[in-house]
């Protein structure tokens, strides 16, 4: 398993560097679709099938389309700017902090991790008996954490309405101009 993941990670880094280097924003938006597909592939390899579903639909589908919608309101070429070092420092500090945080977490697939000791067995035992639904993740999302999901859905719908409103108003403005 590991060599495939390493290779996919290598592809991921290659795409990320390429996107950062490209001045053609349309090409960069297209390549971000590949980035999402690679992420989704990695999620599948880690058995997070449901997350992979979402990543493929949202990352490769919806967000590419939103990026394109945004591009139709701006220009296709990025302005060339002098290299600035402050953002790079910020990125490295933030990334380092996140990596430090990960060090505290239990190892991937560790059977003694808290999540495998308390919640997961409960969900797995309860799902079939309580809901009669074959997919445990579905049961968790829609029943055990139903209100949580409701809140998330509300956030996403609001965001979608906001973005669509922004794009639509921009288009009308553009169309109205002589």
């Amino acid at each position: 398993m590991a060599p495939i993941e390493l290779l996919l990670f290598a592809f991921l880094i290659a795409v990320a560097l390429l996107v950062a280097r490209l001045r053609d924003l349309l090409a960069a938006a297209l390549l971000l679709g590949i980035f999402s597909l690679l992420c989704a592939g990695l999620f599948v390899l880690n058995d997070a099938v449901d997350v992979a579903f979402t990543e493929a639909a949202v990352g490769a589908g919806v967000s590419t389309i939103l990026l394109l919608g945004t591009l139709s309101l701006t220009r296709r070429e990025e302005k060339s700017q002098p290299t600035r070092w402050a953002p790079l420092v910020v990125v490295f500090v933030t990334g380092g902090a996140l990596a430090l945080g990960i060090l505290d977490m239990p190892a991937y697939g560790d059977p003694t991790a808290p999540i495998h000791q308390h919640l997961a067995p409960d969900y797995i035992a309860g799902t079939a008996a309580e809901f009669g639904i074959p997919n445990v993740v579905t049961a968790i999302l829609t029943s055990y954490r139903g209100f949580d999901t409701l809140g998330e859905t509300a956030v996403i719908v609001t965001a979608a309405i906001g973005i669509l409103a922004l794009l639509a108003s921009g288009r009308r403005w553009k169309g109205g101009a002589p």
Partner: protein
Amino acid sequence: MFAAAMAGVLVTMALALVAAARGPSVFDRLLAINLFGTKTVLLIAVTGFLVGRPEWLDLALVYALINFVAMIALLKFVRFGSLGHDDLDAER
């Protein structure tokens, strides 16, 4: 056996990445990205067999569907410069 097929798919993906990076036109990149999407479908299917999880075929099909829809949306943008219907009607 599955590993051999997977190696083939991964090599194809790498070459498609090179083609997408090289361009030069947007359409060349789209061609490479479309190819990459099909290869992701195959990669998921083959991996599913490799690790004994043929249920992953469901995922493979969803990827194929998403790849198709995304491709059409991308082309619509590239061709008309927006996702709106105004330009489509103007084209006719």
